[in-house]
Structure formats: C-alpha cells, structure tokens
C-alpha cells in the first residue's frame, strides 16, 4: 500500500490490488442499470415498487418529523456546548480546542506518514454523488418545508446529482473505473467543505452566553464556533500534508513517537491539557524529580544486574522478594501504617514486575540495555502522569468531574477500553493456563461478570462501592463507574481473546518450544500476536458496544451525552420537553463514532488478512 508518489491531485494509474481483480463488465449507464437491476422481471418490478413505496413511506415519516413546525431545534442548537462538554468553564475553553487540535494533528500526521487509506474509483464517487442527489430530491419533495426552504435544498441536491452525472459521463467508462482517489483526500475534502460551509451557510446563531440567549435563525454560526473549526481543519490538513511529504528518515523517527502519543493521548488530554494541574515547582524539584531519577537509575542498575545470563534461581528469588516488598507497601497503605507517596508504591510494584521479566532479557549487553531503557521510559511516563494527576487543578469547576456530555462519553469509553484490554488479555491467558488455580479463578470471574447485567454492575459500583472502601478513602462517581465498566468489559474481551488463543494450532506451541523460547516469550512473540489478529472482528465489535453502552451511565446519574439530551435539556424551563430533537442529534453522533470504528476494523481485517490465511 506504500505509495511513493505523494501528490494532491487524483492519482492516475491503476493500483496493484485493482489490477489483480478480474476484469469487470463494462458499466451500464444509469438508465440501463435501473432497467437491468430493478425491473428485470415483472415480479422483480413489483418487489421494487412495493419495497420502494415502503421505504418512501418511512423516509416521509422521518422527514416530516425532522422538519415539522413543532420541532424546536433551537433548544438543541442552543445547548450544543452543554451536550459536548457540559459545564467546562468558558474562560478555559481554549483547552478543549487545544485537545481537539492535538488529536487533529496526531490524526493528520499519522495518516500522512503511514499514507493511510484506500483508493476509491471515480465510478463509486460519481455514484455517491448521484444517489445523494436523487435521495435528497425525493426527501425534500416529501418534506413539509416552505417553498423557500425547499428551493434551497432542491438546488443543493440538484448540484450533487449534476456533479455525479458530470463525473460519470465526463470520464467515460474506462477512465472512471481506472481513476482512483485516495480516501484521505475525500475525507479531508469533505471536512474542509463542511468547515467552509460554517462561514457561508446560515445554519443559525444560537448561543447562551453570560445568561443571554441569542436566537438568530437566519445568520451564520457564532464566531466562537466557526473560527476554532477553521483552525482545526487547517491543522488536520496541514499536518497530513506535512506527514505525506516528510522524508523517510524523519518518518522512521516519528513513527514510534506518534504511536506512543496515541496511546498516551487520553491521559495527556484529560489530565494535562484539560485539567490544567498547577505544579508546585519547589515540590517537583525537591521531591518528584529526584524520586523519579532514583527509581530510574537504581531500578535500572538492579534490572541490569538481574538480567545477567545464567543467574537462574537467584534472579527469580530476587524478583519474588521485590514483589513481597512491594506488596507489603500496599498492605501498609491499606491499613495506614506509615505514609508513603502512592507513586513510590506503584514504582516498587512495577520494579518487581520488571525484575520478574528480567530473565527473558538475559543475553548480550544490547538486550539487557533494552530492558533498562524500557524501564526508564516507563518510569518517566508513570511518574510524570502520577505527578500531574495528583496535583491540584486550577480549573474552577464544581462537582464530581470536570467533564460532561460527549466529552464524558468519550472519556468513559476510552478509559474503559484502555484499561480493560490488558485486563482482558490477562484473563484470557489465565483461562487457558495450565495451572488449575488460574483457570478456576479466571473462569469464575468471567462467568460471574458475564452473568450479571451491565446496569446492575454500574449501580453496584456507583452506589455501593464507597460503602465497602476502607475509612477515609472514597472514589468519585465517575471513577467508580469506569472501574465497574472496565471489570465488565474485560470479561467480554477475555472471551473474545480466548477464542483467538484457541485457534492457534498446537504446532505453533511446539515450534516455539523447539526454538527454546521461554513460556512468556512463546506467549508474547508467537501466540498472542496471532491470537489477537484473529480476534480483531470480535474485539472491535466489543469496542463499538462499549462506546454505545456508555449511554447506560446516564441511569446512574452521570451527565453523559444521553442524559443531557434525554433528561437535562428537556427540563430547562426555556426548552421544556425538547427531547426528540436531541435524541435525533445524539443518534447521529453515536452513529458517526460507531460507523467509523466499524469501517476501520474492516480495513484492519483486510490489511492483516483475517479470514484469508
């Protein structure tokens, strides 16, 4: 898929995969196509008419509903900010945009450097334009809009239809099938068009600022909307171009950094950008940095020593001793015997885990240093985020958590996925373990969780968890819900991964044993990569389910997208009962997210050859 000729124009030439396909029949003109596919026999013609009429009926219902005079879309439009971020302070709103910009830059750079995306033939593109235009004309004809509104939408649909027809007939049969456009151009082009439309199309200006309600249905959107989105579009497209034209040497350096940033981006966005911790520099210099350095250096030296080849049982004993030491600190924390920074406890625990893995890196100097560098980077990241998370925020917000609305929906789903994935993999490994105790524990856990409805778990964690925690310790509602959801999601992920694990043939294990790999090397390098590849479709299915089911947190009273749309806005005295409008909007928002994930997983499956090998 590497395309060595970066260009922003339509890529001429036949892509390799397209060349590999069998030659197609010459495509029919639209009129012929309709005759052949929709009215080929009398029976098919009847079917087409009947089901077409049913479809039209439902389109009519929907369009009538959306464009009805009774719909009060201004309630939804005014509350867009509430839907997106709830009460995030307006004075700090730049932080939201920095976060969006950060994600836009990452997306642009990555899709540029990896040259992401497929190629779409002009034939399909012109079909899209034509069908959008035709559908638009039908839908507008059925809608209860007044003449002025209908004319505007008719013109828009007709333009789409005309573009489609022009592409179709302008290119000719051979050319429209052999001309390809890369999907990033299409996607970024569409985004640019939407953002540009904010500057010209009168979507209406509905704002609620400092208690003043602005309601101008015929003007363009507020500048606080159109300016930031323009900047975002520039960042996205600019970084994409930069990524495409980056020299290969730079790309090689950037790739691991970008992957690391992607993995850490939820933490960076939530706890560094959005939460704005107010660092106490005296404390950072006197305590935090020396502590991190101490762990990195002393731990590194220890790991280097422990990865010495031929250490045998001594290494294992040392690792186990460290583990006991770390566990003791956690016990001490639990019973409150003596104070210690949580960071130190965490660091000891991870040092023990690294030490137990050290035997796998027993080898030459280079391999041993890899372990030490890995430890250093891990510790630096851990200490950085632990410090950031434990530092008080400068944000002036009241309540449980500073995010709400769609931001909370995204936070809950991303955190749940990030935390439940490793947990799920470990549960799956434990369930296929040779040791009965692990098998038993894991099976009991998975079956117990899978037998309980998610909403029960959420209620349990949001209401009851704090009653079980030791004195003086409490967990915020958001954290409690994320914890419960993670435990739930991990059980399902574990089953998906187990399916993958069981598809690995015996020979793979034997081959790994024959190479003299240790147990963890076999798992890490041979079994898991293959198992995860096979598990991609169910894993993405689970990710989509997780994303959509975050709407259940509305029931335990978290102000996620669903609760704001369904309960909060309809209760505002200005917009009493405005509920259907919000539900239509959030269905669309959920759909865009879920559909993108589904598309991405299809691509991933194709690239990794799932189902072919």
């Amino acid at each position, binding site marked *: 898929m590497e395309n060595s000729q970066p260009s922003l124009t339509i890529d001429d030439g036949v892509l390799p995969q397209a060349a590999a396909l069998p030659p197609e029949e010459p495509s029919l003109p639209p009129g012929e196509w309709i005759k052949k596919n929709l009215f080929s026999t009398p029976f098919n013609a009847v079917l087409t008419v009947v089901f077409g009429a049913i479809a039209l009926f439902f389109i009519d219902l929907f369009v009538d509903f959306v464009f009805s005079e009774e719909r009060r879309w201004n309630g939804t439009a005014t509350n867009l900010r509430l839907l997106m971020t709830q009460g995030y302070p307006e004075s700090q709103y730049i932080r939201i945009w920095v976060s969006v910009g950060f994600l836009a830059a990452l997306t642009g750079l990555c899709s540029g450097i990896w040259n992401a995306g497929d190629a779409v033939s002009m034939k399909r593109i012109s079909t899209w334009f034509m069908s959008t235009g035709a559908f638009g004309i039908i839908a507008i004809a059925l809608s209860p809009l007044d003449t002025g509104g209908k004319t505007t939408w008719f013109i828009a649909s007709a333009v789409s239809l005309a573009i489609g027809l022009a592409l179709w007939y302008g290119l000719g049969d051979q050319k429209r099938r052999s001309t390809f456009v890369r999907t990033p151009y299409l996607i970024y082009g569409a985004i640019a068009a939407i953002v540009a439309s904010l500057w010209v199309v009168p979507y209406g200006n509905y704002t609620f600022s400092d208690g003043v309600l602005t309601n101008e249905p015929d003007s363009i959107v507020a500048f606080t909307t159109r300016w930031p989105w323009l900047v975002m579009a520039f960042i996205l497209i600019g970084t994409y171009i930069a990524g495409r034209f980056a020299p290969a040497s730079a790309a090689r350096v950037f790739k691991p950094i970008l992957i690391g940033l992607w993995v850490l981006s939820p933490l960076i966005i939530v706890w560094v950008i959005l939460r704005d911790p107010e660092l106490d520099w005296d404390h950072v210099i006197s305590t935090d940095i020396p502590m991190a350095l101490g762990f990195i250096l002393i731990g590194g030296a220890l790991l280097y020593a422990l990865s010495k080849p031929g250490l045998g049982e001594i290494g294992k004993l040392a690792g186990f001793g460290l583990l006991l030491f770390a566990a003791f600190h956690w016990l001490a924390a639990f019973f409150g015997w003596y104070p210690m920074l949580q960071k130190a406890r965490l660091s000891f625990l991870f040092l023990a885990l690294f030490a137990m893995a050290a035997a796998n890196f027993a080898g030459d100097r280079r391999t041993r240093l890899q372990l030490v560098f890995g430890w250093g980077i891990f510790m630096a990241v851990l200490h950085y985020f632990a410090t950031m998370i434990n530092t008080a925020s400068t944000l002036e917000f009241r309540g*449980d958590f500073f995010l709400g609305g769609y931001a909370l929906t995204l936070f809950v789903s991303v955190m749940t996925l990030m935390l439940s994935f490793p947990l799920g993999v470990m*549960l799956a490994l434990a369930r296929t373990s040779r040791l009965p105790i692990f098998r038993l524990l894991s099976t009991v856990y998975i079956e117990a969780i899978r037998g309980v409805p998610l909403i029960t778990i959420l209620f349990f964690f949001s209401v009851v968890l704090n009653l079980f925690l030791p004195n003086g*310790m409490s967990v915020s509602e958001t954290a409690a819900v994320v914890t419960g959801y993670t435990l739930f999601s991990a059980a399902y992920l574990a089953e998906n991964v187990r399916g993958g694990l069981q598809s690995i043939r015996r020979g793979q294990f034997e081959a790994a044993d024959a190479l003299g790999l240790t147990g963890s090397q076999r798992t890490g390098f041979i079994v898991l990569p293959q198992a995860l590849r096979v598990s991609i479709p169910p894993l993405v299915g689970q990710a989509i389910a997780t994303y959509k089911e975050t709407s259940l947190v509305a029931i335990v009273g978290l102000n996620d997208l669903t609760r704001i749309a369904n309960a909060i806005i309809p209760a505002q005295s200005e917009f009493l009962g405005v509920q259907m409008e919000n539900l239509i909007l959030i269905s669309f928002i959920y759909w865009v997210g879920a559909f993108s994930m589904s598309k991405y997983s299809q691509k991933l499956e194709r690239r990794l050859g799932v189902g072919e090998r």
Partner: protein
Amino acid sequence: MTMTLKRLLALLAALTLLVAACGDSSDDDSADGGGDDAGQDDGGSDDGDSDDGDSDDGGSDDGDSDDGDEVELTQGDGVLAAVQARGELNCGVSGAAVAFSTLDAEGNMVGFDADYCRAVAAAVLGDAEAVNFVELTAAERFTAVQTGDVDLLMRNTTWTQSRDTDVGMDFGPTTYYDGQQLMAREGDGFSNASGVADIDGAVVCTNAGTTTEQNISDAAAAAGISITLNTFEDFNIVTENFISGACDIITTDGSGLVGRKAEQQPDGEEWVIFPATPISKEPLGPTYGQNDSQWADVINWVVYATIIADEKGVTSGDVDDALANGDAEIVRLFGGEGELQSAMGLSADAFFQVISQVGNYDEIYARNLNPVGLTRDGSANAAWTAGGLIFAPPAR
C-alpha cells in the same frame, strides 16, 4: 511458575493502577502521604484510627454515638464543621427537575432548589457559589446522605412519615407546597372546576415508578370511577402522548403541569388543570441526615431567614439599608445587635449574606418559578399573611 504468577500479579497491578489513577480527586490518602498537604485538616483521620475519623457523615454515626451528641454540638464535630472545613457545600439536587434544579445551556445549576443550596452555602461559608451540586437519582438520594456524599438534599423530596422515621432522614421547613393534579383539554369538556369524579372512562397517563401512579388509582377508587391508567418512562414522553391525543388526561405534581402548560400547549387548544384541591399533599423542602440538631438548625433558619425577609419586604437590593434602618428583628437576623447566629456556629452576618447574595423567598420564587407560569398568589405558597402556608417563627 513465574509466568503464571506474573500474569496474576500484572492483573493485580492493573487493578491497583486503575484505582490509584482514577480515584485521584478524592483519594486523600495518597496525596497526604508525602506530608506536604497541610491544607487538608482531616489528615488526622488518615492514620488508621478506625471509627472516629468519619468527619463527614452526620447521618450514619447516630447509631453508635448517641451519648456523644452534646459533645459534638459544642465541639462542632457535625456536618456544619465538616462543611466549614471543606469550604464547600455538597448539595444533592435532581438536575432534571423543571424550574427546581436544571442545568442551563452554560452548564450552571439553576432553579428553586439550586438557589436554596446557594442560600445555605452563603450562610455557612459566606459564598453562595461555594456549592458542589451532586446530581442524584431518586433511588440513590437517601443513600447519598447516609454515606456523607452530600450534606443536604434539595431534591424536591416529599416529606413523609416513613422517610422521617424509617429511612432516617430529617426534614426542614417546607419551601414549596405541591400536590398532585390532573391536566386535560378544555375541548374535551373539562374545566378548572372539574373533579376526579368527572374523569370516568378517561385514559390517564403518568410516569412510571412514582407515587403519582398510586395516588391517582386511590383517588379514582375513592370517587368510585374507573379509568385506564397508562404509564411511561418519563414525563416528557407522557406529555408527547398527551399532545398526540393518546392520553385524555395526564397527572403529576401541580408545579410540573403548570410548566408543561406554559411551554407545550399548542395554539388553538386550551389545557386546564384541576381539581383545585390537589389529590395529594407534596410538601417539598430540605432534607438531611437525622440527629444532627446543629446542622438542622442552620438549614431551618436559612429557610426561615428568607421567609422573614420576604415578610418584612427586605430584598437583595436593599439589605444594607435594612441593616442600618430596619426593624429590630431584621437587624438581629442580619447580624446587627443582639444577633443569635454566633450561637448557631455561623458568622453573625450569615443571613445577611443569604439575602444579599441569593434573595428572599419571594425573589427566589419569582426568579425560578414565575417563568414556568407558577405564581404565589392564591396558592399554598403565598405568605401566611396572604392566606398561604409560608410561615416562619420569629427571629428573637
């Protein structure tokens, strides 16, 4: 062996990491451990004493420390001291109760109940904005008080005998007298003078899982009529069904019906609300954990202060004038001579702050309930001098 052990440990690590990473905002233990957080005055409770470290729950410690109540009062170990130490009032609200507590488009909590939370914060902390609004569902509201998650409930909670005794709550003075009523179309032959006896055979709709369902069934049985009762998940859907004609009559608390009528009544149709005497009594007011008289006094007198100020005609605009030239009761209440607030554990000007920052009862009512069409005149919520039930004992 090591591998499997490692898996288990990594699992454990992931769990602990999760708790540690997510619980940051409230996990004092980890932040205090370094000894650098002098600001947290409840640090003493972190070092493992088992029982008395619970500075935050006035509601649940009654069971084992009845004899300690007097000591607690004087030492200020109740909710009041906890709130003052925290510098923030955790106030439980609904968040989705029309005109009582809702989020506006900017994400601020507004409404009648929300303003009473602010009034308490103004009295206790001197700052009406020092409120942390905790949105609670009906199911979790009492648990939230018992676990100390909230100091006070202003969540349109009806004062009932079972809640006052069995559930372990105490109730402050009623701030809003509500009652269940019915709403129908005038075109269907109903009027404001209709009664429950007139709805024989009608399709009555309400939202599921509330006492309204029980009340209307009881009222219909008492009137000897039969109705078809349909319930829906929430009242927005109930109203949609009423508008579409699927329901002849809808029923819920009168305050809710008035709001719906003001906002959603279609042109050319007239909705009427009846009977004039509601079919149920729903006194709504502040609710808190039981057996903390000091905290109860504070809440009660915040409410009374707003009522007294209304009675005397003192509004947020003229508090300074009232303090300088007002009558003796207002001067006492506002922290002038002979004030009693200090004895309650509040600053002398606590109620002055309430009125100046939030307003008197009438202002709070007008600000929040007038926009949805609820007026005080002639209702139970008029002042006692005007034939209503809003009354406060004298401040002396």
